[in-house]
């Protein structure tokens, strides 16, 4: 009760502070050359009140205050404390409040941490950020208030969707949002810098840190979501080209492109228009993501709020932001670098341009694949599905030159360069092709495309690996990230090609045996937990070498709401994952058993961590 009141009024106060900040900014902008302390303290206060509001919502969840509609819809007294807390952002209203929290946090950090930049630039960035913040305050208060009353007060809540009751998913949204919303500060400062015409190498150095922060969190956020999907959705895949996954991948692709593009701007003061467009695109794509997920027009496992009114609000807000940024771009931005910069074929600039070219292509594939079915449905009411085969067909062939460019590009110098170590580059290519052929020659499926693909990934792998041992080579962060990427592609390919699977139906006591694997269904147990009841099936599985593992996958029946889920049992080792999941077949006394051996599974996660580690190293590096 009391928490809801505090939470709600904190939001109102936050909104009022946001509006008053426009006024202070206007006054300060014209009159003073130093940043008004009022602006700083008001920004802090706004952040403070959003924190209060957020804490109030958390407390409402912790004490199970069912007079609050959000708590009633998404919580239950029997849930463990951890999931009561994570339930705070496992729903529409709470997750938007988290958006707002991150928005205000970032603008505060930006004001505090930005030094050596003009005051006008700081103020203008704040103003643009406040437009977004005020928009979200209004959205929250008008259409999705997390502190709505219910009367009479229910005695029990409806519970949290069981697939969301999971440790990885509890931290997935906050991390992902730090990435998503982090791009807002890039958006705001790009608009500010464009208006003031201060886009330069100096500015690029300053904004690169913010791009990196956003990029690191976005990468890790996507990773966590993927790990969760792998063990929780219960069918052993880790990426489904599901619309909601695509929606998180699109800003990542745009942000990665921007990260490479800013490297050129940092050195050369060229490609300014392109940097502006990419920054705007990244944030717009994050917002589009929010719109697509919240409006419920996507058919996806992740959709958990459908309300056309909310979708409409975000859509209008999005159009205002896009309109504003186009306006600023065309009115203020003049390409001052008319001296017509010459690009040479063999130079770092060109290689980064080529990177941008491919990344934009990948982005367009994902964007069109996600949006086109909706579009077609609206104009001709014909429903089509766009799934993994579409993305694979359009992306994989382009991945091959992309990987080779990733290996060679970083070796080139600025302006004009010659390829050094040609012998190394060519001999590595030959080794990679031979090795790929050796690995694949016993598997007669798609041998040609797989050999080419694996050899290009191996090529990147060897080249980057060698560079770790070459002393004169300086750009360690780039090398780590590229090495991680080669490892990622290799792990995904091997994981796909060498996976094996057994699907069978078994009763208790029965045994399944083929030439390589023996599965014994030993027994069934029952377990009662606070928030679910479970049936535990015990299997012992042995392979050719006589290694035996005991597996206990579960079928859980959650009590609030009543939903049955399958919990996979996974044995992870360095080289492969063993994955077993069971399902009840209706009106039958046997279980449907699915057992998979998935090589290099761990390496997929490790390589993504390595990629973001490259980002972290770059973030910590002092500029020489």
């Amino acid at each position: 009760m009391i928490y809801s009141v505090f939470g709600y009024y904190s939001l109102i106060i936050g909104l009022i502070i946001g509006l008053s900040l426009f006024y202070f900014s206007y006054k300060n902008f014209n009159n003073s050359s130093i940043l008004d302390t009022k602006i700083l303290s008001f920004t802090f206060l706004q952040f403070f009140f959003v924190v209060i509001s957020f804490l109030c919502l958390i407390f409402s969840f912790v004490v199970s205050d069912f007079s609050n509609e959000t708590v009633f819809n998404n919580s239950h007294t029997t849930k463990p404390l951890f999931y009561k807390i994570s339930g705070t952002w496992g729903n529409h209203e709470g997750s938007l409040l988290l958006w707002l929290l991150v928005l205000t946090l970032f603008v505060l950090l930006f004001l505090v941490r930005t030094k050596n930049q003009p005051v006008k630039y700081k103020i203008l960035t704040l103003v643009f950020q406040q437009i977004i913040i005020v928009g979200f305050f209004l959205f929250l208060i008008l259409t999705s208030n997390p502190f709505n009353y219910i009367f009479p007060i229910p005695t029990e809540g409806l519970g949290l969707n069981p697939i969301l009751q999971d440790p990885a998913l509890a931290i997935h949204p906050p991390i992902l949002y730090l990435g998503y919303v982090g791009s807002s500060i890039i958006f705001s400062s790009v608009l500010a810098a464009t208006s003031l015409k201060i886009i330069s190498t100096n500015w690029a150095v300053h904004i690169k840190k913010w791009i990196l922060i956003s990029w690191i969190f976005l990468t890790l956020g996507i990773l966590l979501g993927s790990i969760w999907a792998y063990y929780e959705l219960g069918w052993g895949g880790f990426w489904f080209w599901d619309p909601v996954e695509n929606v998180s991948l699109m800003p990542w692709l745009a942000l990665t492109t921007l990260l490479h593009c800013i490297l050129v701007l940092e050195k050369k003061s060229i490609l300014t228009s392109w940097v502006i467009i990419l920054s705007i695109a990244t944030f717009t794509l994050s917002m589009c993501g929010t719109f697509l997920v919240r409006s419920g027009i996507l058919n996806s496992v992740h959709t958990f709020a459908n309300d056309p009114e909310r979708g409409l609000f975000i859509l209008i807000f999005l159009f205002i932001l896009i309109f504003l940024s186009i306006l600023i771009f065309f009115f203020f931005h003049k390409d001052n670098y008319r001296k017509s910069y010459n690009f040479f074929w063999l130079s770092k600039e060109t290689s980064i341009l080529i990177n941008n070219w491919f990344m934009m292509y990948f982005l367009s594939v994902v964007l069109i694949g996600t949006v086109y079915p909706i579009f077609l449905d609206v104009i001709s009411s014909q429903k089509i599905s766009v799934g993994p085969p579409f993305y694979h067909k359009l992306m994989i062939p382009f991945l091959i030159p992309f990987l080779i460019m990733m290996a060679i590009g970083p070796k080139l110098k600025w302006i004009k360069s010659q390829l050094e170590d040609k012998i190394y580059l060519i001999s590595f290519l030959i080794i990679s092709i031979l090795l790929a052929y050796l690995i694949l020659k016993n598997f007669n499926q798609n041998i040609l495309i797989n050999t080419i693909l694996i050899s290009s990934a191996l090529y990147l792998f060897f080249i980057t690996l060698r560079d770790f041992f070459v002393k004169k080579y300086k750009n360690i962060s780039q090398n780590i990230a590229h090495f991680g990427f080669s490892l990622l592609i290799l792990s995904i390919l091997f994981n796909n090609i060498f996976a094996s699977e057994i699907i069978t139906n078994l009763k208790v006591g029965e045994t399944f045996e083929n030439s390589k694997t023996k599965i014994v269904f030993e027994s069934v147990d029952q377990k009662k937990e606070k928030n679910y009841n479970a049936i535990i099936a015990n299997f012992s599985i042995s392979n050719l070498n006589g290694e035996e593992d005991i597996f206990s996958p579960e079928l859980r029946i959650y009590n609030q709401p009543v939903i049955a889920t399958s919990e996979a049992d996974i044995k992870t080792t360095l080289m492969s994952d063993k994955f077993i999941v069971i399902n009840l077949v209706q009106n039958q006394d046997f279980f449907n058993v699915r057992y998979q051996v998935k090589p290099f599974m761990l390496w997929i996660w490790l390589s993504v961590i390595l990629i973001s580690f490259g980002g972290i190293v770059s973030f910590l590096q002092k500029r020489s």
Partner: protein
Amino acid sequence: MKILRFVLVIFLLFSLGNLNAKESNKLNEITKNLRCLICQGQSVYDSDSEFANSIKIIIDKKLDDGLSEDEIYEYFKKKYGEWILYDPALNKNTYILWLLPLLIFLFGGAIIFKKLIKK
């Protein structure tokens, strides 16, 4: 350097020797390309719903009858509409879907090429 490379090659070859070959399974291939119509964004392969299970049984029968992969897709398309296929065919509805990304790629390439030859 050379030793390291050698060790790596050996290591890779050995680790791969232990892996199992995948038995080519047509049923899996086909079910991965079909949408489970009653689920939220899952393929028939990934789902254990009754709908998905009945589809799997139908495919099994069709395969026994000697139908090809394409004939099976055609059968499901007739019965449930294009919505069930994850791999949309190229026709007048999907020209934009398939060709627009490629056009964008060519367009981007043209811009870069122009920048490069400009002296």
